[in-house]
C-alpha cells in the first residue's frame, strides 16, 4: 500500500492582483490565497490513488505564515494529514530555498514511497521544485507526467518530453511532477470540508530543520516586479451593423498587409 506525499504552494490568486496604472506597481492587497492550480492536480492524483487502492497520503507546504489558511482546503481534497512550514523566509524564496526546506522537512517527517509535485506554481512558475527536490533527496524524478498508476512498489507514468510521450517506470521511492491534464481537481463536497476539520495538521518550524542561513537565502533575487502593459492600437469596431464592422476590419487587415 503506497505511502504518498503531495507538496503544494499557497499562492495569491493572480486574478485578484491589480496593476496600478500610474507606476505599474502590483496591488495584491485584495488578493485572496489559493492552493496553486497545478498543485491541486498533484494532491488530487495522490488522493485518487489512495481512495482507489488504499495506502495513505499526506500533504506538505512551505509558505509564509499565511500558509496556515490553506490547511483545511488541502485536507478537504483527500490527504490524511498536512504538514506545514510557515515562515517569513518564504516571502522571497526561490526554488533553491523552497527545495531546501521541503527536502529537510521530508527527511524530518520520514520516508514516502512517492512524492507528488505540480508542474510549477501559478505565481512564479519556476517549474523546478520537483526535480530539485529529487536531486536533494537523492531520488529519481519523473517530470511532466500526464498519466500514472502504481502497481506494488512501481509507479508507471506517461510523461511528456516536448516532442514525445514516454512510458516509464520507477521503483519507490521517487518524485513525480504532474501536468494539469492528468486529472480534474475535485471541488470538495460539504462532507469532505467538514471531515477536513477533524484531520490532523502539524507545524514544522524552520529552526528545527537544521538549515544554514545560506540554504535559506534565495540565489535568484526578484526585483522590481511591474505590471505588463500591452501597447496595442485598440481600434474596436462596434457599430450595430455587422457588415460595416467587417468591411472596416478587412480594410485594416489590408492596411497591415495581412490579407
Amino acid at each position, binding site marked *: 500500500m503506497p505511502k504518498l506525499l503531495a507538496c503544494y504552494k499557497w499562492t*495569491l490568486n*493572480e486574478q485578484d*492582483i491589480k*496593476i496600478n496604472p500610474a507606476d505599474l506597481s*502590483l496591488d495584491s492587497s485584495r488578493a485572496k490565497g489559493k492552493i496553486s492550480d*497545478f498543485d491541486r492536480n498533484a494532491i488530487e492524483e495522490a488522493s485518487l490513488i489512495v481512495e482507489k487502492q488504499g495506502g495513505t497520503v499526506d500533504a506538505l507546504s512551505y509558505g509564509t505564515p499565511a500558509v496556515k489558511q490553506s490547511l483545511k482546503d488541502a485536507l478537504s481534497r483527500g490527504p490524511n494529514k498536512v504538514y506545514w512550514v510557515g515562515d517569513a523566509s518564504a516571502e522571497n524564496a526561490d526554488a*533553491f530555498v523552497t527545495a531546501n526546506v521541503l527536502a529537510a522537512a521530508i527527511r524530518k517527517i520520514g520516508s514516502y514511497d512517492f512524492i507528488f509535485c505540480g508542474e*510549477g506554481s*501559478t505565481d*512564479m*512558475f*519556476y*517549474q*523546478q521544485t*520537483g*526535480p*530539485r527536490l529529487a*536531486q*536533494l533527496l537523492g531520488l*529519481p524524478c*519523473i*517530470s511532466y507526467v500526464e498519466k500514472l498508476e502504481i502497481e506494488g512498489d512501481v509507479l508507471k507514468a506517461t510523461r*511528456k*518530453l*516536448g*516532442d*514525445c*510521450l*514516454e512510458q*516509464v*517506470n*520507477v521503483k519507490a521511492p*521517487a518524485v513525480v511532477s504532474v*501536468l*494539469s*491534464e492528468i486529472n480534474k481537481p475535485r471541488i470538495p463536497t460539504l462532507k469532505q470540508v467538514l471531515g477536513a476539520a477533524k484531520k490532523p495538521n502539524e507545524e514544522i518550524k524552520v529552526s528545527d530543520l537544521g538549515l544554514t542561513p545560506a540554504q535559506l537565502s534565495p*540565489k*535568484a*533575487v*526578484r*526585483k522590481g*516586479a*511591474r505590471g*505588463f502593459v*500591452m501597447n*496595442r*492600437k*485598440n*481600434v*474596436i*469596431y*462596434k457599430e450595430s451593423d*455587422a457588415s460595416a*464592422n*467587417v468591411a472596416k*476590419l*478587412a480594410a*485594416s*487587415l489590408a492596411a497591415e498587409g495581412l*490579407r
Partner: protein
Amino acid sequence: MPGIIVFSEDGALAQQLLTPALELKKTLAQPVAAITIDENTAKTLATLGADSVVLLKAEKATPEALAPEIADFCARESAAVVLIGGTQRGKHVAAQIAAKLQAGLTTDAKTLAVAGNTLQCTRILYAGLAICEEELQLPAVATIPARTFLAPAASGSAASIETLEVKPDTRITVDSSTPIGTSGVDITAAHKLVSVGRGFRKKEDLKLAEELAAALDAEISCTRGIAEDEHWLPLERYIGISGQIVKPDLYLATGLSGQVQHMVGCRESKVIVAINNDERAPIFEAADYGIVGDLYQVLPLLTAALKN
C-alpha cells in the same frame, strides 16, 4: 575552461542559445561551450562561434540521463553561466543542474546580462500579469524559450567537437517512446493564427473558424479549455502559459475572453485582432483591431469579405 555553457537537445534552439551566450561572452570574457545530442547540430554549433562543442552520445536522451552528465561538465569547467533551452526536457535538466551546483535558476528568461558577479534576467510572474528582474549570483543557470533569440551568423571558424558517452539512469526504465504532434502542424511556425475559445457552442461550429483560417491562409489554435476540457482540438494547438507560445504576424482571437494565462502565449504577436460579443472582455485591451459582435454572424461575413 568554458565559463559559459549552453545546452539544448533541440538543434534549432541550441543554435539560438549561442546568441545570448556570445553576448555574455563580451562582458564575462570567458569561452563558450555548446552541448547537444546529435552530430549534425554539433557540427553546426562548431561553426557559429562556440569555442568548443560537446556531443553527448546517449542511448536514450532522457532528462535523468542527461542532467548528471551536464552538471558534472559544468562543475568540472567551473561554469559561470549555464543557458539551457526551455523545453520540458531542458527545464528538468536545468533544475537538476542548478540543484547540483547550488545555483539560482531563472525560468524562461526573456533578457540576460552580466553585471559584476551577477546574472540579471527578466521573466514573467503571475502567468504573465507582471514582469520582474531577477538577480542571480554566479554561477547561475537560466532556461530560455525557443525563438527568444535568432541563431547567430556563421563565425568563419570551426570549433573542436568532443564526444562524451552518457550513462543511462537505471532507476527509471523507458518502455516506449511515441512522437507527438505527428499531425505535422507546428503552430509556433505559423505566420497567421485564428484562435478559438469557448464562445463556440459546439465542435461542429469550429468550421466557421476553419473557413476564415482558409481565407487568411492561417492555422487554427485555441484556448486550454478547448483542447484540455472539450478535446475539440489537439493539445499541441493550445496557446498559453503551459501550452504553446507563439509570435505570428496575425493572431485573430475569436470567442475567447483573453485571460492572462492565454494572452501570455500570444501577446508578442505582431497584430492581434479580437472578435467577441462582450465589449468588456479583456481581449479588446490586448487587441489592435476588434469587432464587438456575435462570432456566428461576424465570421462568415469576414470570410466572405476576405475572399473578395
